[in-house]
């Protein structure tokens, strides 16, 4: 079961910050401002922000930005990054061509 989150928690209003235009997710080109705004609009978990904005869903699968996104969300929510749940890690660990994926070889003994 996931961590208890009352979505009515008042974070105050969304205030723009000077570095909101900074790219955080390099693959999907999602900015810090977009991530911050999503949190104010109710996205309170890494996974929800990910699904709403596509951060960490690009070719590198959040390898570069995962920690940064977590830090931004945690800061907006006023919690420690370690308190946030991680996104699920999914196969394949690297992008793989469909024809290769489809080409299952049996290495039977």
């Amino acid at each position, binding site marked *: 079961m996931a961590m208890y989150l009352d979505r009515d928690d008042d974070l105050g209003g969304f205030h723009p910050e000077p*570095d909101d235009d*900074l*790219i*955080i997710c*390099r693959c999907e080109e999602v900015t*810090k401002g977009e991530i911050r705004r999503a949190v104010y609009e109710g996205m309170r978990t890494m996974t929800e922000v990910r699904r709403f904005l596509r951060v960490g869903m690009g070719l590198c*699968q959040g*390898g*570069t930005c995962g*920690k*940064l996104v977590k830090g931004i969300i945690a800061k907006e929510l006023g919690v420690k*990054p*370690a308190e*946030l749940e*991680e996104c*699920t*890690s*999914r*196969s*394949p*660990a*690297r992008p*793989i061509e469909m*024809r*290769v*994926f*489809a*080409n*299952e*070889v*049996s*290495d*039977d*003994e």
Partner: protein
Amino acid sequence: MKRYDLIVVGAGPAGLSATIEAAKYGLKTVVFDENSRPGGQLFKQVHKFFGAKEHKAKIRGFKIGEQLLADAEKAGVEVHLNATVSGLFDCKEITVIENEAMHHYKADAIILATGARENMIPFEGWTKPGVIGAGAAQTMMNLHGVQPGSRVLMVGSGNVGLVVSFQLLQAGIEVAAIVDAAPRVGGYGVHAAKVARCGVPFYLSHTVIKAEGDDRVTGAVVAEVDSHFKPIPGTEMHLDVDTICMAVGLSPMSQLLSMAGCKMQDKGGIVPIVNEYRETSIKGIFAAGDVGGIEEASSAMITGKITALAAAYELGFAEEKEFREGETCYKASLAQLHEGMFSPANKGRTDLTVTDEGVLLSQNLLKKGYLDLGEIMRFPGAADEVKKVHGIHPVIECTQNIPCNPCQDACKFGCIAVGADITRLPIVNPANKCTGCGMCVASCSGQAIFLVNDDFSETEASVTLPYEFLPYPEPGTKGMALGRDGKAVCEAEVVSCRLSPAMDHTALLTIKVPKEMSMTARFFKAVGV
């Protein structure tokens, strides 16, 4: 489905050590690595490693890689390269992408040794070509022989930032500065000192705030930060660089473990919860090396062995006696590396003010990357009694408790002592006569030992320093001696430049300087170079 006793994922220091250990007990083992050559990050490490002999101290990283490979080959380990493990599934099954096909394998035990990935910090322009990871710089210059840039700003003063800065200099690249948002140098003082004396300025409590340029980096803006790491307006400073290199920490590459369902925790990086043998919450799945928590390669090699030993015991290949003996030995070896100021227990501590010996730590070293003369004299390797020795003698500028002792082994004449506790500061024994062989200078992984001869001539002293740059200066070359801060302090002339196979590419450059400069001159720059 093809099944092994043990599958190891990652052929870096941890993975290879694990396979070699497993082979000892007769486990049918295979190791997969996505790279075209094994060794993980070892082949990018051109510096000599720290530790004691059993940790392969004073051997350069890439040579350790070669040794491990030879050992693995001798042990008959099956190594698959260009083989990407794409998934870790139920029942200890992995999928491997190899030769344009997907293979399924199972094993009774799986050791994940997938290493780490680099952390990044975002700033304006950080996506521009020319902003790279420190690992990228290493890869380009040390594996592919290509300079990543011509003038570099290094962001981060941890060991990676320091070591890579030095490697950049060795590759003929200028390092414009090292900045770190922290108020103290994060890495070993000796690594910092060898970069600082080449003239690289350190800006602590500074961070990069902008990469300038349109389609590539043409400059960087750095600024001082306050105690909350926020840039202080008005402190901005422009640096002419074409490359910004990020060395701001590493995070375990633990995705496969999460995928498998191992219980994980966030300790600044996502790591599996493991027991004393690095076994995860899923029996038979182990985490060796950085994937279980970031450490040095030396520790990774030991954790690799521990996991393989534990797997061998669990699967009935190792007898209890063998297991207990091996365990005791490896744990002791790991414990040695876990001692000292930079130990995992001391990580992040800023309250240490004195060494284990009670010597006040150098604040300059932490703030600027080098010690001032007054501070040096406090330490046992350079104290007054050392200075009073007539003729040639070592001066050891090793001022922090780090686990390392090759200097003690290097001196056959008993001039240098560290003792059984390898984190102790080396002591120079003035009673034993130094012959000036210089083996201590060449063997010090931190390049912190110098030979000083105040009696070189009537008016001159000689200073012998470790030198790992090309070209080697010819005897008679005139130039400037640089101080610990990298600034020219006096004129100097090369007396000799010695190199032997035993020194393993660390040349001993002897320069002569005015007598009073013997404790100040620490580097040499030929005039016109």
